[in-house]
């Protein structure tokens, strides 16, 4: 796929010019991206660890409510992440660490979809099957990988 025309188009947008010409924007985006990371990762730790048996006396139905926080964190990071792309498109698309980060996010979203589909189908609201526990563990592994590959983007250029 030809990526250069997309990079060129992104570099010519008003959003790119705004980000490049205002020094406060990049650190603000980074701060928001890290707040989103804490919301997403913290809430997923609560949900996935409960699915894996940590704090098993806590009702799963109560822990599930924190999915709202996960979605909020993801939306913040999707928005700020797109802004990063527009701000410096040359840097990201061909970066192997960025590509791996995107792959892990895609896998984590598919995994989350599978988990929520199984949640809806389950008969016992508190007892989770082996495949759901596996999905919960896989979710944590994938999101840790997302953090790792995200952090390594500037170092594998």
């Amino acid at each position, binding site marked *: 796929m030809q990526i250069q025309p997309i990079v060129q188009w992104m570099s010519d947008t008003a959003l790119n010019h705004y980000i490049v010409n205002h020094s406060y924007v990049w*650190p603000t985006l*980074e*701060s928001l991206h*890290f*707040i989103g*990371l*804490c*919301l*997403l*990762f*913290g*809430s997923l*730790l*609560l949900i996935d*660890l409960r699915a894996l048996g*940590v*704090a098993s*006396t*806590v*009702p799963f*139905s*109560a*822990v599930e*409510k*924190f999915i*709202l*926080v996960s979605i909020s964190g993801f939306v913040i990071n999707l928005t700020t992440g797109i802004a990063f792309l527009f701000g410096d498109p040359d840097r990201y698309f061909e970066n192997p660490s960025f590509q791996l980060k995107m792959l892990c996010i895609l896998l984590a979203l598919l995994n989350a979809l599978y988990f929520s589909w199984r949640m809806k189908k389950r008969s016992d609201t508190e007892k989770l099957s082996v495949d759901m526990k596996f999905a919960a563990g896989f979710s944590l592994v994938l999101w*840790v990988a997302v*953090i*790792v590959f*995200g*952090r*390594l983007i500037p*170092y594998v250029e």
Partner: protein
Amino acid sequence: MDFLNWAEMSPIGEWVSTSLWGYPVALTLHTIGMGTLVGLALMICFRVLGLGQGISPRRLLVYWKLALIGFVINLASGTALFFGSATILWESWPFRIKIMFIAAGLVGTHCLVKGLTRTQRISVENMPEGLTSLGRMSVGRCIGKQKVLALLVIVIWVTALVAGRLIAYIF
């Protein structure tokens, strides 16, 4: 200062500042630790503010203990990062603010969690047995003072996080 120069010249300081992977490895561990510590501390605050009311406040101690694993990761990785550029960081205002707010965040979250376990023990002990079993709401509900503290703790952690990001931008 002698200590700052010693830190930078130490094997850890040299590893972080001169090796290919020292800095990125320490930084990545620091981010995972931050997600664990701040992430779980924020979830505890959200519970106090009313989200996920089926979680007994007493159980929040388990999550605070898990969050402290994140703190241990960050203490180790943060020390390594500090040793890597001790003389610069020592003079950095965002770094100083970050450290002060991390200390405040740790104390604040600890007080919040301890206060919740104490409140619940008192409320359960003072309640007749029948009422305790029926009164799930009164056992699980947090009082106004705790909610104010939870809001304050959220602001403290977010400030620490933003100050940490600004270290790279404000010298």
